[in-house]
């Protein structure tokens, strides 16, 4: 306690007179720079910013407007928009949350204290931050995102998977799927920028279903997923996930595991309930129109699904014994259990789609018949034939095509494989067959001697990096930059694959033009060589000469308009046979074609 009774002194204040003798404190007139880490005005590295709008979402004062700057790049596939934040300093409160949430780290604040102007110059309060700052002079960065201040979780939840030694001798699914905690944590990383939606060929509402997962409402997530994709189990497992390439969290961190989240949502709701949910969207009445779809793969069945839920009668003709197309006959079971594919197909048939298996168009039924019996026909036959390198010796009986072998494994459950196998190709099909063969070798020979040779250097492989890693874990030897020259055959026996080293693979325009180093020759011993390179269809055979002749073609593929309609008004084409191989693209195509057919049929209804 102070001395409350102190009466004070009248003289003590006079001591302050001593200040007259002290030097005056002077401050220079020039503006001084603020401290490191000061929250001044915005700076934005335009080359780093992807226009994701996260800054706008976190801004509690609605101070940020997204402005389209046409001169900047705009690439949906890469997750880059030409939008940039403009800041209204009449609203900004300099909290720097925009900096701390920025997924790319392009935003920072400057070390300037002051901006002021007259009422006439009020427009200067609204500015598009760039690298230099609002006054045209760069004074250095003030507040920048640090590891501590970063508001984003850049690390993906690790997906549990069975270790290589447990998976290499069987075809059980490899990944465990997310636990609820993992899914929640993973979903919480999303900033809802929608880059994934824009990059997805079928425009999946990933931000919405991720949010639903985060909110613990898996049924709602399923509802969002089925908005755009009836192959939800399939895509939750084997989608090429372009969404993840575009994810803005992926700019500095690992992108959200969008595909695994979809898998989680789909697995989290019972098959029964999923069917009930999907039935919500079924049209109440039948339209009386009939549509035939040729090929029960993702494109064909998506078309059928869309048309069926709109009330059209759809019959799908499938030449093989079971529906599913490439997901069944091309993708090994350790990536996609047949049961999950069956569930997707059951959901589709529950919508009223009829699938007739073992009815091959061109044999049991002709296109002409379909044309007569149905109001519209969709060709969705995929690319089921493997290309051959046609190098010397490639006509040997033990030189096989990957797609055919994979199909054989699906149909027969297993095949006999030799002790040494060489695969040609660096795509996902090559990995699929290599890992399948590796498993069969482990079962039949007790060890894995599978070699993958690809023209590409490893960083240019078309296969998913995870596939390459997992293949290596399972004992597959990856030989990048090898150009196949000859399947060496001696005395009628396939001996090996002879390859040359590839010195360069692309020309200056980025086109495929391998150059070989002939001195770098290797012979990979092989009892079987599997070619896993390009794929093609046999559309012309199936269509018949007449129809093939009538139709218009574009560079060897059926010519279709943007809605998938061919030059024949009753015939549409969808999927890989039009676009090249990709499951999610096929689904997107299915939707497009179905929409077009629906419009045409309804138009016909109106005029009739």
């Amino acid at each position, binding site marked *: 306690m*102070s001395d409350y009774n102190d009466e004070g002194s009248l003289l003590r*204040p006079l001591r302050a007179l001593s200040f007259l003798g002290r030097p005056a404190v002077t401050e220079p007139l020039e503006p001084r720079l603020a*401290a490191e880490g000061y929250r001044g005005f915005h700076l934005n590295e335009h080359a780093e910013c992807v226009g994701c709008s996260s800054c706008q979402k976190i801004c509690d004062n609605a101070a940020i407007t997204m402005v389209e700057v046409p001169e900047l790049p705009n690439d949906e596939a890469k997750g880059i928009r030409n939008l940039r934040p403009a800041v209204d300093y009449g609203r900004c409160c300099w909290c720097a949350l925009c900096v701390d*949430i920025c997924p790319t780290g392009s935003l920072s604040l400057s070390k300037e204290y002051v901006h002021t102007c007259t009422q006439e110059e009020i427009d200067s309060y609204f500015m598009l931050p760039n690298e230099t700052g609002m006054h045209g002079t760069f004074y250095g960065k003030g507040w920048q995102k640090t590891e501590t201040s970063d508001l984003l979780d850049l690390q993906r939840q690790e997906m549990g998977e069975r270790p290589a030694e447990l998976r290499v001798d069987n075809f059980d699914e490899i990944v465990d799927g997310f636990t609820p905690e993992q899914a929640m944590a993973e979903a919480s990383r999303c900033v809802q920028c929608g880059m994934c939606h824009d990059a997805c060929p079928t425009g999946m509402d990933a931000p919405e279903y991720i949010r639903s997962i985060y909110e613990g409402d898996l049924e709602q997530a399923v509802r969002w997923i089925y908005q755009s994709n009836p192959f939800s189990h399939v895509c939750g497992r084997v989608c090429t996930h372009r969404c993840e390439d575009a994810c803005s969290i992926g700019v500095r961190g690992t992108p959200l595991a969008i595909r695994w989240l979809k898998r989680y949502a789909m697995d989290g709701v019972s098959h029964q309930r999923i069917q009930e949910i999907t039935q919500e969207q079924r049209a109440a009445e039948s339209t009386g129109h009939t549509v035939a779809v040729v090929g029960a793969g993702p494109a064909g069945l998506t078309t059928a699904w869309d048309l069926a839920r709109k009330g059209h009668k759809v019959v799908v003709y499938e030449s093989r014994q079971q529906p599913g197309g490439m997901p069944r006959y091309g993708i090994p079971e350790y990536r996609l259990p047949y049961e999950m594919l069956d569930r997707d197909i059951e959901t589709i048939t529950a919508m009223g789609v009829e699938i007739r298996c073992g009815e091959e168009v061109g044999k049991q039924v002709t296109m002409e018949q379909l044309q007569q019996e149905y109001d519209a026909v969709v060709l969705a036959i995929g690319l089921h034939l493997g290309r051959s390198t046609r190098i010397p010796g490639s006509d040997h009986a033990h030189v096989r095509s990957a797609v055919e072998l994979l199909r054989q494994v699906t149909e027969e459950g297993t095949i006999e494989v030799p002790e040494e196998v060489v695969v040609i190709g660096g795509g996902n099909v090559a990995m699929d067959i290599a890992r399948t063969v590796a498993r069969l070798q482990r079962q039949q020979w007790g060890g894995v001697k599978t070699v993958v040779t690809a023209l590409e250097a490893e960083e240019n492989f078309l296969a998913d990096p995870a596939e390459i890693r997992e293949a290596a874990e399972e004992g597959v030897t990856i030989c990048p930059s090898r150009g196949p020259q000859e399947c060496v055959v001696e005395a009628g026996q396939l001996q090996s694959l002879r390859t040359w080293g590839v010195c360069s693979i692309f020309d200056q325009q980025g086109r495929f033009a391998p150059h070989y180093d002939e001195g770098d020759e290797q012979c990979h011993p092989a009892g079987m060589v599997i070619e896993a390179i390009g794929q093609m269809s046999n559309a012309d055979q199936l269509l018949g000469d007449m129809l093939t002749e009538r139709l218009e073609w574009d560079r060897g593929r059926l010519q279709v308009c943007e809605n998938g309609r061919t030059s024949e008004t009753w015939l549409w084409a969808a999927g890989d046979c039009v676009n090249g191989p990709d499951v999610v693209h096929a689904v997107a195509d299915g939707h497009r074609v179905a929409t077009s057919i629906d419009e045409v049929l309804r138009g016909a209804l109106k005029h009739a």
Partner: protein
Amino acid sequence: MRAENYQQINHPPSHAFELNFGPNHPGIEGNYALQVQVEGDTVVQARADGGYLHRGFEKLMEQRLWIQNIALVPRICVPDPSPMEVCYSMAVEQIAGIEVPERAQWIRVMQLELSRIAAHLFTFGGHAATTGMYSPMFWGVADRDLILDLFEEFTGGRIYSIYNLPGGVRRELPEGFLQRVTDTLDYIESRLPDYDDLFFKNRVFIKRAKGVGVTEQAMALEYGVTGPNLRAAGLPFDVRRDDPYLVYEQLEFEVPTEEAGDAWARTLVRRSELIESIRIVRQVVAALPDIGGPLRTPIPNPLAWRVPAGESYARVESSKGELAYYVVSDGSEKPWRVHVRGPSSMHAVQVLEELVKGGRIEDVAQTMFSLDACPPEVDR
């Protein structure tokens, strides 16, 4: 109230006059009004009139993401903003069950105490000005600026630090910062004799302040007075010591009191508190180099963060007294309710009305400033 809306109170013809203190008045931190009736120089009736700084913070907070409110709350008390963000963060942490890393707790204590020093310096200046002493006013404001320099350096903002997040603090202290804190504290300590000469022990000031605006302990308790104003009436209660938070339990400090409960006693309590705060900051400065670890327990992506349903009542001791946040979550991305219990809402309304009654006109402003009434806390 705007001038055009002002209606003169009809009072009986007498020698009583009505005076308006505020809403713009140098004796008020911010905008606030006190309508007083005087007879001669004596105040016979007073009525507080608030709302000039009402920005609807509590309503706004119900419409914003949990962490967006961090940018909002410091604005509720301009002279002492740091307790606002710390208290809000604490309330959210309690609901969400977030442990704050130790280092962050120490840094928060440093922030709070630096803020208290700045706020008290400001109050000294303001109080001095209401008694006609302008040099201490300039000193108070200028020396406070040195603390603001420190804030600028470690939080990125001079006034509104926006330095806390639920879970911890936003960034590491700059290189060599603790030394600069020590230097500034040394300087402020060295200034105290100057303040004593010109202000605390200035006979003129003592004469003016003694016996003005007396809150005896019983009255203080009855009216819910807290903080320095309560301690000036002899009750040694301090939230930091008696309902401890952060790492205050590990710190040594006194809870200074006075008995008289008048304007001077309140100022003396603040002066002692300033010394205690310097003492606390020095302890933090000494301890911090040995306290490693993270600064922040990560929270989920703030754009989606849902704080689990629940409620909490977080209290801190601000420079003005007991500051509390009552926060209710319904489990969504934004608070369902945030109630800010500003300490001034007690001593700036009912207490003030009571204290100026019977006093003299010239003491009204002094009474307000000696209570450290902060209108934005009342208005929110």
